[in-house]
């Protein structure tokens, strides 16, 4: 094995970042997906489009705007400074915020599909059986949407692991704090350390393959989103 301590630090940081991001995404994404699946509001289209933006935007564009808004002169930066939190760029917290936004559609869309697939009938049946909307969500919607949550979790995690451009724009390259695997590979290649780059890159390929294999064998006939 040609990996050194900085490689392992990058792997560990990536795992932490992806886990925390996935957790936050499920918490944030569930209400958004529920609203998108149920609403008849005219805002459904615009909101859905905003959520999907990270699918098409170059990560540099996303990263650039995040950097500006979270920076010392941006609105978010002003707010975090007023709260005594300092500024988010070039911190692990900043990476988490960026990752949540970057991976949002990968969590919201499978959840939204799962909620839409349930339809209104089970909700109506639950209501006629005395279940309040909140009760119904936990006793009917969550169990019925479980495959959607698993898909969303896997995709959110995997996509965050694969993040590069946004991290580089807002996280820089600080070992142990913001240097994730993808950035570490970039550094190795820059330094012509191809052996280490191979190990990490190969690991990423294997990881991604296993994740996707898991997804596609779970629901063979259904596309991911």
């Amino acid at each position: 094995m040609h990996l050194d301590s900085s490689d392992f630090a990058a792997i560990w940081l990536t795992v932490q970042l992806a886990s925390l991001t996935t957790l936050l995404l499920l918490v944030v994404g569930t209400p958004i997906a529920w609203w998108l699946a149920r609403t008849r509001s005219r805002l459904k289209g615009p909101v859905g489009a905003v959520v999907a933006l990270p699918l098409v935007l170059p990560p540099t564009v996303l990263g650039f705007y995040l950097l500006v808004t979270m920076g010392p002169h941006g609105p978010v930066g002003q707010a975090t400074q007023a709260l005594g939190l300092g500024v988010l760029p070039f911190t692990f917290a900043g990476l988490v915020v960026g990752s949540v936004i970057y991976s949002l559609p990968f969590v919201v869309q499978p959840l939204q599909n799962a909620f839409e697939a349930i339809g209104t009938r089970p909700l109506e049946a639950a209501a006629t059986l005395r279940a309040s909307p909140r009760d119904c969500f936990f006793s009917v919607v969550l169990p019925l949407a479980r495959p959607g949550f698993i898909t969303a979790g896997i995709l959110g995690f995997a996509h965050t692991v694969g993040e590069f451009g946004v991290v580089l724009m807002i996280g820089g390259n600080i070992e142990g704090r913001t240097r994730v695997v993808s950035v570490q590979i970039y550094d190795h290649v820059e330094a012509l350390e191809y052996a280490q780059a191979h190990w990490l890159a190969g690991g990423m390929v294997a990881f991604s393959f296993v994740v996707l294999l898991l997804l596609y064998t779970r629901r063979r006939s259904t596309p991911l989103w």
Partner: protein
Amino acid sequence: MHDPAAAAAGAVGIEARFRVDYPDFALDVDLRLPGRGVSALYGHSGSGKTTCLRCLAGLEPAARGRLSVNGQVWLDTQAGIALPTHRRPLGYVFQEASLFPHLTVLRNLQFGLKRVPAAQRRVDLDQAVELLGIGHLLARMPAGLSGGERQRVGIARALLASPRLLLMDEPLASLDVARKQEILPYLERLHDELDIPVVYVSHAPQEVVRLADHLVLLEAGRAIASGPIAQTLARLDLPLAMAEDASVVVSGTVAEFDPAYRLMSVRLPGSASRLRVVHAPLPPGSTARLAVKARDVSVALARPQGSSIVNVIPVRVLDMAPAGNPDHILVRLDADGTLLLARITRYSRDQLGLAPGVPAWAQIKAVSVLA
């Protein structure tokens, strides 16, 4: 306990005034339904019967109007009252059972049961399971049940929510004839053994004739008739009587049974007349529900002698109307308060000189026992 809302509404029964406006459909009804027994909402598809039922359940958020169920106000748009569905003590049986696919039959049954406070439970698990004959299914998942089994579980699940109003949306429509026959007896037991008012949506005349005590006829989002089944089926101004197999429902008391001919006698209320029908004996004194088709009734001015027709009873002609077929006439007959319809030819009417008030004899060729 004094309930001011109940005192204000005053009445036992269901008062429902609904208005729903959709781009392609409007419902506008004002109904008074009895607080017990089965009320059927009958009409063709698109007549608004399911929408009306969903309004009763609070499943149509666009509905405006007023609804009180045995004194409890569930909806009063003007007073700003709109009880959400889960606060209405009702049971709802959907057309396709709609069991929760992730729960076993038992957990499906318990879903409503455990959400009703123990003090308000009126039906227990064993009773519902026995009533619908689903004891052997409890451990199964809904996906493994037949349509008829699923529907029975759906009905039991609704009953276990201890409803004060049971709403059924064509519970038999998705089933084949054999499954219908499987479920109908359970619905009749429901009717006989539980004192829960039922509103039953159907477009099948056989089900209505068999189950309903009260009939509401819906057409294009409006109620064109509402009344007791026997009177409403016999009304000559409604499309019901025009149907080729139009029939009336007759309720009577089981009088005696002749085992030699397996002939059961049913006494008509307030009358010396009785109808006799070949049937297995029912307990004397119990109420029998009979159906008589208009085309099985003929009219004679003098009592016919030497006829193979068993049932000949004295009647008076109430009124007449043209039937759907231009050669036929519908005659409404009064047998001491029991209403019958006879479908005769125009020729016979003129030959007999039938007119309102004329006394006559009704010959009834066939009587079927519904329950």
